[in-house]
């Protein structure tokens, strides 16, 4: 046979060479980004000292050594871990959403899913306290679970509004998303306005996103959500790939379309809910990362989902370093940084698609 056979000789789904290389490269970038994030700030810590402390505990016993250790373990490490987890969850949720909508413009932050999660989280903070007593040990999970349910409800509403005869209209999703984002944003604003709750004072936290005030508690809060999404999403890869043909043809090809769609909606809500509960709405990030991965590795979800997880961790860590150093000692809301990069990218994508389709 011709070289067709040679090209096709890789087993499906494994692609050992390309898959391994892509994972290793992005993982390497993520590690470097983490080292930068751990070292950079009002007090600089050299990478070798960061590594020495990470693997050997406090180095030396001077006041400076102790201060560096506190900064590293109590401030920068939780913040970096939070950036990585939120970045992974947001990027994978974006990739899944785009596969579900069969459109690279799907982003939970743009179409109102994140805003719905933020509203639900704000509702929990204002009214959940009375429930918390009855929930006992589960009270801790109230915030992320509310955000998850808010994201789930919003994705469900979008699907319902935009699906006719098994066909999801992307234009309707985007337009409905605008309406829902405006509505939920207004409601969140109203809550913040009438609330005296300390945690809700900062409206910008919910609507523009921030990793400020990162604690190990927050890390532990988002960890199960991010882990469930990142580890579970690859099971959807084949279904999402085949959905690119359209729902009817995916079903003819043997995909359980309704089940795939339900699981994808659930996955998006898990990722967005977990991320929004600890960081607010970080817009356009879920659009940018999968798009960059697709540009370099192609659209196959087998690669796209795991690589987006790693690239999302790396890029949000970098974006956060930028957000907290560029205007130091003040801190930019992280969502401003991601939007400044992501919004032009969305415009560029729109223009490119218009050129293709005329």
């Amino acid at each position, binding site marked *: *046979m*011709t070289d*067709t*056979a040679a*090209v*096709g*000789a*890789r*087993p*499906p789904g494994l692609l050992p060479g390309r898959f391994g290389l892509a994972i290793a490269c992005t993982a390497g970038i993520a590690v470097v980004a983490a080292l930068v994030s751990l070292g950079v700030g009002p007090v600089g810590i050299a990478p070798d000292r960061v590594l020495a402390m990470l693997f050997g505990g406090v180095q030396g016993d001077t006041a400076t050594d102790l201060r560096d250790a506190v900064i590293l373990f109590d401030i920068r490490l939780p913040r970096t871990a939070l950036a990585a987890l939120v970045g992974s969850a947001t990027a994978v949720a974006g990739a899944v959403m785009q596969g579900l909508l*069969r*459109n*690279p413009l799907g982003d939970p932050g743009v179409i109102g899913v994140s805003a719905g999660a933020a509203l639900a989280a704000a509702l929990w903070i204002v009214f959940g306290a009375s429930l918390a007593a009855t929930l006992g040990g589960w009270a801790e999970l109230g915030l992320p679970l509310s955000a998850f349910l808010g994201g789930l409800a919003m994705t469900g509403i979008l699907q319902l509004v935009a699906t006719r005869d098994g066909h999801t209209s992307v234009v309707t999703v985007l337009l409905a998303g605008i309406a829902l984002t405006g509505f939920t944003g207004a409601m969140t604003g109203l809550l913040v306005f009438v609330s005296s709750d300390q945690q809700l004072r900062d409206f910008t936290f919910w609507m523009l996103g921030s990793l400020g005030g990162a604690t190990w508690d927050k890390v532990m809060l988002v960890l199960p959500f991010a882990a469930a999404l990142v580890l579970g999403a690859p099971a959807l890869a*084949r279904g999402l*790939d*085949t*959905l*690119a*043909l*359209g729902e*009817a*043809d995916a*079903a*003819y*090809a*043997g*995909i*359980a*379309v309704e089940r795939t769609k339900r699981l994808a909606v659930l996955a998006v809500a898990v990722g967005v809910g977990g991320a929004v509960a600890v960081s607010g709405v970080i817009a356009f990030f879920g659009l940018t990362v999968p798009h960059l991965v*697709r540009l370099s590795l*192609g*659209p*196959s979800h087998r690669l796209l989902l795991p690589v987006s997880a790693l690239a999302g961790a790396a890029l949000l860590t970098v974006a956060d370093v930028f957000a907290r150093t560029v205007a130091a000692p003040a801190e930019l809301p992280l969502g401003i940084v991601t939007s400044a990069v992501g919004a032009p990218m969305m415009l560029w994508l729109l223009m490119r698609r218009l050129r293709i389709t005329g």
Partner: protein
Amino acid sequence: MYVAEDISRRAGGKTILDGVSLALPPGTVTVLVGPNGAGKSTLLRIMAGGLPPSRGRVLLHGRDLAAWRPAELAGIRSVLSQSTGLAFGFRVEDVVRMGLPRHGVAEPPAALVAWGLEVVGLADAAGRDCTTLSGGEQQRVHLARVLVQLKATPADGRARYLFLDEPTTGLDLAHQLLLLDIARRHARAGGGVLAVLHDLNLAAQVADTIVALDGGRVVAEGTPEAVITDRLLTQVYGVDLRVNQASARVFVLPVAG
């Protein structure tokens, strides 16, 4: 055996199909013809399991189509749609690979994909971005995909069915003939074919049985010679044309050679 029993479909207050029954015997090519809006594609979609009938049922090997799992059904019935979009720039061979089942592939996947592309004459395009191909070429990629889908499941003695919804749209003459040849070969090998065709000449060339639909009802059914008549052309299509006969096949003007 693939049987539709008394199928009706209503949508938006309009009757699209009205009590249609149809059997697809293995080893034959059945072609649906009829004017626009006759219900041809709707019947094909209902028989393929892509659309539920409002009344009636479709039986495949004696079991109601609704009771089949999608993956199981995909192993013995594949569908080439009128136009299949592609949301992202997958490579040609990745698109063909979408026809493979998750488990239990009969032959090495790479060999199956290469075979499919060979059959449709696109062996050289395996690594290309599918969305950069012409409409006709993309249609051939999807043809390769649905052929691979049927070949991928290990033979179990049950007939495989190929559904083609206006498959010649966008294809040049040579590839229209290639497609008809593929359909005929599939039937000769013991499979069943159901195709919607607009071109009565192509239909007469490829069909064992032609079923003419009009207004959601079967108005004629039988061999090409029995169905494609002057009466069909005037009463169903409303055109004043004569049917001609050449080398044991009927044809409608104009025809070359």
